């Protein structure tokens, strides 16, 4: 079930990206995207803290990056 769901989501992602030829912006149109707060991880230290907290309090981790870990968190 989970494998099928993952495959479905992966297929959707692949289809999404394969139609990406119409996506994008020209260099002169990227003023907004160049702003620090428009970066994918605009607040990396906040993300690191969140990853550590939720790694130690929940059964899941990672996804955005190699989140959490490195501790015997109780």
């Amino acid at each position, binding site marked *: 079930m989970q494998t099928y769901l*993952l495959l479905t989501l992966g297929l959707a992602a692949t289809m999404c990206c394969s139609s990406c030829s119409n996506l994008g912006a020209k260099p002169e149109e990227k003023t907004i995207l160049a702003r620090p707060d428009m970066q994918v991880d605009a607040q990396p230290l906040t993300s690191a803290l969140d990853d550590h907290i939720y790694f130690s309090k929940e059964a899941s981790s990672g996804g955005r990056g*190699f989140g959490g870990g490195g501790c*015997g968190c109780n």
Partner: protein
Amino acid sequence: MKYKNIKKAISTASIAALGVTNASDSIIDRMDFNGTLLFYSEPDRVSAVEAIFDSKYYMKNNDVLGLKITVDVLTGASASGAVTTDVDQTFTTPSGNGLYTTRANETPLDDTFKDTRISLSPSWTRRWNSNYKSVIGATISKEYDYLSLSANTMLSYNTDDNNRIYSLGLTFAHDTISPEGDIPIAFGVMQDVGALQPRLGTDDTRITADLLLGITQVIDSKSLFQINYSASASDGYHNDPFKVLSVIGADGRPVIENTTTGLSSAVFENRPDSRLKQSLYFQYKRDMFDSHVLDASYRFMFDDWGVTSHTLDVKYKYRLNDVSYLQPHARIYQQSEADFYMPFIVSGKEPGAGSSSSHASADYRLGEMTGYTIGLEYGRDNVDRPWSIALEYYLQDLGDIKGAFGGINSKAEDVSAVMLRFNMDF
């Protein structure tokens, strides 16, 4: 002015550390220093203070060297896994040297946790050309009873039109745990103070390999998205050595192991010695009205322990003016229970001590759970020294105790936490 002096002092120390006596001889083009401080508090349970200091050195050859230092201090109480019942319960501390008593209808908490962790993470980033970038890093993390060593690398390819980035990341980690009171024997019965506790050895290890594949795509001049697939395979010791399961008698109350001391019967947990986690992560960012930012993400995760989880996270950066903003944050997390999760064991059905092929844990973090986080951040950016302060509230709704009978409380106590975070760029 004060902050500029701080940065100047750090810069001078950094240049000296690199063996350069004259700033004009420096191989460093510029430096960035960021810090964050978190206060975390669960009422009557865990309190923690965590600080991260991150420094980045932009070299004249365009390489970037980084060093992230993390220090956290943990103290307070943590749920032992034993059930909440309508009678008082007595347990032995993990060290085997002390007793603690939990009153009726209160969650058994072991209040002996106290630990300090320090972690160092150096990294080296090189942009090979306009397309390829690599990051190589390592982390050493040490606390009283835990040592983690890891190495990681991330390779990314940026398409010629700068509209898409493909990423490949790998991490390998080796963890060693040396718990207070040593490693318990699986399903060994907790003994009285002074008696021989069921212990297997002083330490154990786990290795973990992580893979991450990602695509970041520009949608248009105001938005982009990211999709990541990640897998994490680990092998070795996965138990929490401080977690136990209550052994429940026919009356629905913990069996008394020792009628003289009142010690409740509890056995140490045992989890599988391997785990494979996989997840898909979607993130969408969009500029709103040429100044605000919507940042939304969803993660689907599952593993071979039977845990499935969904995480939805939304932030909205609402710009008040050119230099300040408010950022509300909401997060919803839902997980199913692990196959071997059980809130207690009925007397007579507990596996024998050392039954490594049987698995059971009453750690609530492996049970059904819905988590809610709400928060608000105020910050100032577009200034010389950006800073922000955030207050967040986190609630874990743990649901019902399946199979509860007799004196066992049928509803697990919710866990809540307040987080105060302060960020600053020096």
